[in-house]
């Protein structure tokens, strides 16, 4: 059976709207701090696991690979794990697996998110989380799906916008004493209600801010934990569950998948009645309603009565019977997705070991639960931690931690520091396959098509070729179904997919529509039109308005929108059809792209490098632990994990003293097209310096070079990235 696993140290940066540090530097600061907190060195760490949410935020493909050195994973067993927004609480679960399996004695668990490089706004990264064929053309983004869920939650459980505004204000106030907090403010429900409506019912202050930050925790087995001075806090239970990606196929009001994950964790922890056995709750709260939505599931109460009673009796406050997000949550501390989840785990550790300072809950705490959520209203991760009767720590730096004690350099604008811009050209042509080709063929003919799963008695829309919930049983019967249905939830949006405002007076109304003739809750997401936004109601009947036949292309936008059916009668015919034949014409692809661009801060090391480069200079950074000068300039040494200051520890390197360590002659450009003129890329080393610099070699026609040839740096005229790092032969 599993080894018991304890958390024995925490590190974190400030949570910032925009950090000067590069992603790896953010992670390194958190890791260094966790090592100090636990009294360990990087050599004591057996393995490293890292959680970070979409690559689209930081703007690096295979972001986990990019973060290895910063996470302390260089030359170690290192693995990244990922469940979208639920990643941060998967992080300690994956760390738990490393140790509970007996594979490793210790594991560094790191969560990093740098959302600020994504322009014009990180929210834009979410346009491509939706199904690319059936949903993306509608230009939905995350705020829309949250708004649809929030409206449904309010409708079913009877919460008002003011109720939820009070939750937002309460959690943000909790953050006033969190040293990492990005936007801790003492606001009232009125402030939330009066903030601009972005996509009804969501207002600006219902939402957590986007953030840059990193958090690290160290997990060890019980044997090691008992030898350390600090009181360990043990992982008592873990659970994680993933729902179907067909998010329109289920009622969004209650997250069953979170409840299932919680049940798994409770079973392992021996929790019988969570409302009785758990002392405080850190559910994921990217939006205020989410804290309650998740708490319903964490208390395993689909009726919602327990949470409603606790809310109405004021018992969700920090001095109440069931404190909700005493950390200050994503709403107050900030929401650097994966790092938020791990911040909540850190809060469990702080509270249960008496290190929460002014946030310390004033009663004996035995057990807390943290939860994260993510993907398409779909993923739940849950961790229960317990104090195991250990006496609270009385002396801890965390008890007195002030914001200025935490690492991290907030900046106002990316233009305040050296920076690099880039826009990847990521284009696709997706194979639709048989079922979706049949579905799109229907749209072209002005029909909505489903397929019938006889095992579960469900008409499925969009048509699918197998039953995802009945053993992948084949589904072969396809039908044209009515294009009428009922609005299950809706939002009136004032923003585009990239968070930019719609023109004044214009709104988009998105709705989930349960189509007639299929099981309730099952339907599709689309726009509403031909209606006064004020008159839209949950439960209203609507009908598809199609483009004219000549303009239809076999696309979800062949339906212009759904309009009120009024008193007209719906035709409820369901007719079986012959699906498309498989041939190269019917199996056409759908074109798509990821439409993002990025502005990266050069980071602390990179700022030094580019500032020097502009002057035709090179500085290394002296690392006392190695007794070596390192290039490029570094904020940390990835081997000893000592922190460095590229300014104070700068050592001048003669830019004319380089020699070619290795090289390649490149014949293709970044797209793979042939270059008119081949380019030579060189790795240049300098005498008595650890590391190297990559750059292009400027050559005259008669120049000859080889490994070892002496080169010197060329002072660039303009600097906009690595292509301006140029050497020439001496």
């Amino acid at each position, binding site marked *: 059976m599993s080894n018991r696993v304890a958390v024995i140290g925490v590190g974190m940066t400030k949570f910032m709207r925009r950090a000067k540090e590069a992603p790896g530097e953010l992670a390194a600061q958190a890791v260094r701090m966790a090592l100090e907190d636990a009294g360990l060195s990087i050599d004591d760490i057996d393995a490293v696991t890292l959680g970070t949410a979409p690559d689209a935020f930081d703007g690096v493909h295979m972001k986990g*690979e990019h973060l290895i050195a910063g996470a302390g994973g260089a030359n170690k067993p*290192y693995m990244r794990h990922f469940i979208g927004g639920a990643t941060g609480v998967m992080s300690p679960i994956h760390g738990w697996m490393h140790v509970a399996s007996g594979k490793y004695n210790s594991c560094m668990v790191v969560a990093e998110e740098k959302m600020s490089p994504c322009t014009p706004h990180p929210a834009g990264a979410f346009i491509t989380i939706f199904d690319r064929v059936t949903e993306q053309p509608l230009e939905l983004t995350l705020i829309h799906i949250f708004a649809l869920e929030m409206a449904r939650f309010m409708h079913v459980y009877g919460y008002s916008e003011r109720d939820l505004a009070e939750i937002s204000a309460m959690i943000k106030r909790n953050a006033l004493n969190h040293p990492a907090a990005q936007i801790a403010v003492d606001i009232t429900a009125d402030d939330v209600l009066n903030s601009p409506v972005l996509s009804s019912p969501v207002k600006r202050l219902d939402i957590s801010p986007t953030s840059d930050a990193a958090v690290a925790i160290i997990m060890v087995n019980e044997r090691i934990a008992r030898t350390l001075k600090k009181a360990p806090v043990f992982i008592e239970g873990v659970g994680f569950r993933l729902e179907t990606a067909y998010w329109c196929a289920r009622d969004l009001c209650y997250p069953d998948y979170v409840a299932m994950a919680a049940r798994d964790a409770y079973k392992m922890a021996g929790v019988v009645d969570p409302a009785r056995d758990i002392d405080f709750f850190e559910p994921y709260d990217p939006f205020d309603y989410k804290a309650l939505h998740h708490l319903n599931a964490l208390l395993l109460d689909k009726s919602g009565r327990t949470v409603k009673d606790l809310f109405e009796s004021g018992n969700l406050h920090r001095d109440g019977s069931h404190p909700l997000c005493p950390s200050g949550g994503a709403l107050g501390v900030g929401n650097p997705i994966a790092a938020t989840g791990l911040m909540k785990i850190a809060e469990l550790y702080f509270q249960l070991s008496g290190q929460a300072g002014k946030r310390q809950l004033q009663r004996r705490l035995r057990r807390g639960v943290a939860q994260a959520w993510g993907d398409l209203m779909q993923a739940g991760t849950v961790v229960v931690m317990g104090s195991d009767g250990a006496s609270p720590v009385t002396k801890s730096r965390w008890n007195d931690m002030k914001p200025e004690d935490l690492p991290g350099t907030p900046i106002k604008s990316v233009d305040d520091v050296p920076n690099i811009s880039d826009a990847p050209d990521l284009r696709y042509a997706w*194979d639709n396959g048989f079922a979706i080709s049949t579905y799109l063929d229907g749209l072209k003919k002005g029909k909505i098509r489903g397929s019938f799963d006889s095992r579960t008695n469900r008409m499925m829309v969009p048509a699918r070729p197998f039953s995802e919930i009945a053993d992948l049983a084949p589904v072969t019967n396809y039908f044209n179904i009515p294009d009428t249905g009922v609005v299950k939830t809706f939002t009136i949006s004032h923003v585009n997919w990239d968070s930019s405002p719609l023109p004044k007076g214009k709104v988009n109304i998105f709705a989930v529509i349960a189509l007639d003739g299929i099981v309730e809750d099952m339907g599709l997401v689309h726009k509403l039109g031909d209606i006064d936004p004020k008159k839209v109601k949950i439960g209203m009947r609507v009908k598809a308005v199609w483009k004219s036949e000549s303009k239809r292309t076999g696309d979800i936008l062949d339906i212009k929108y759904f309009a009120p059916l009024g008193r007209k009668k719906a035709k409820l015919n369901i007719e079986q059809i012959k699906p498309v034949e498989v041939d190269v014409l019917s199996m056409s692809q759908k074109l798509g792209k*990821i439409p993002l661009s990025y502005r990266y801060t050069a980071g602390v090391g990179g700022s030094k490098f580019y500032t020097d480069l502009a002057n035709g200079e090179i500085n290394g950074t002296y690392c006392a632990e190695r007794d070596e000068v390192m290039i490029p300039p570094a904020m940390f040494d990835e081997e000893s994990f000592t922190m460095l200051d590229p300014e104070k520890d700068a050592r001048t390197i003669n830019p004319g003293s380089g020699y070619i360590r290795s090289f390649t002659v490149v014949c293709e450009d970044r797209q793979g097209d042939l270059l008119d003129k081949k380019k030579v*890329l060189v*790795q240049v080393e300098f005498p008595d310096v650890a590391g190297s610099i990559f750059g292009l070699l400027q050559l005259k026609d008669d120049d000859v070079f080889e490994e070892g040839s002496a080169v010197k740096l060329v002072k660039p005229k303009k600097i906009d990235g690595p292509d301006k790092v140029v050497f020439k032969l001496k």
Partner: protein
Amino acid sequence: MGVALLGMGICGFTPTSTSLSYREMIAKAAKMAYRDAGVTIDLIDGAVSAEEDFPSGYSIADEYVPDQLGMVRKPVYTIPGDFMHAVASAAMQIETGRYDILVVESYSKASNMLTKDEMIRFAYDPIYNRFGLSPHWLAGLELNSFLSESGFTIDDVAEVVVKNRAAAIADTKSPYGDTFSIEDIINARPVAQPLTELMFAQHADGAIIAVLGTDEAARKYARKPAYFAGIGWGSGNSILERRDHSLSAGTAIAAERAYEESGIKAPQEEIDAYFVSDAYAHRQLMHLEALGLNGSPGLVVNPNGGALGGGDLFEATGGARLYEALSQLRGEAGACQVEAERVLVHAWRGVPTDSCAVAILDSERRIS
């Protein structure tokens, strides 16, 4: 350790796969894997997928994992690593004693990604390493470093391609089997000299599923399981300026652990066949060096043709090697069959990484 490979399934392994959506392709491979492992969906505790976001074209690829595996509402997560990293994670999960049977999934729809070079370039550090050049530049530079440090010649590198692509002719799932000479490889169109376009794997589409479980589950359900004797993984430095480009530190770290768990002292004597990442031909040689097989004669390496013969399947690539290894241990490798009771499967994540995984598999559980 007591983790076994109960069975596997595949679908695709073609340069394009127009008639199947990724969902349809994965569902087909999953049904094959479950049948092969002798399990029904209700017996499976959860799934681990090996996927990155951009190859799939989704910002959160993890969302689209559970449905086509029949794993809706089960414990599922993604490892953005090679298939073999996900296998390692699933094995750890089983070793906690709380899960008995897990599925590992990965797929490639490389043919749907129209700007692959641009995407791989996007994996480089934007501040120091993201040049306006082919992302193969690092492989070209690595090749030069390797040749000057290791004693291998460019002919040795070309010979890897000649051998692997020839071996793939007999492999039923490999699309790139063919007959080349060493000169063909060296004189092919240059990409990042001395690297030519025949020195790295072409992409292919395909889905791969593995079913892992406890030894008890293997004995109870599986027709012909294989047994993991050891699994390790490791990463070299991600800061390219301070990485030694003539060797694979990630492989050495992974191998050390896998050998230790398996009790292997002299791999060349104890392991019968090696399934090693050859996404770039020089990397096969570099990986064998890091596996401690320096100069060992007569090694059986990539008898089914490796990725050069079978295609680069992005994150699924290591899964193809595992599939080949399983078929060899079972004696079901057809014209590619070699004698093997203990094999090594190695995976590497491609440029710009040095992240690798190593697993040792046996045809029977050995009591150490």
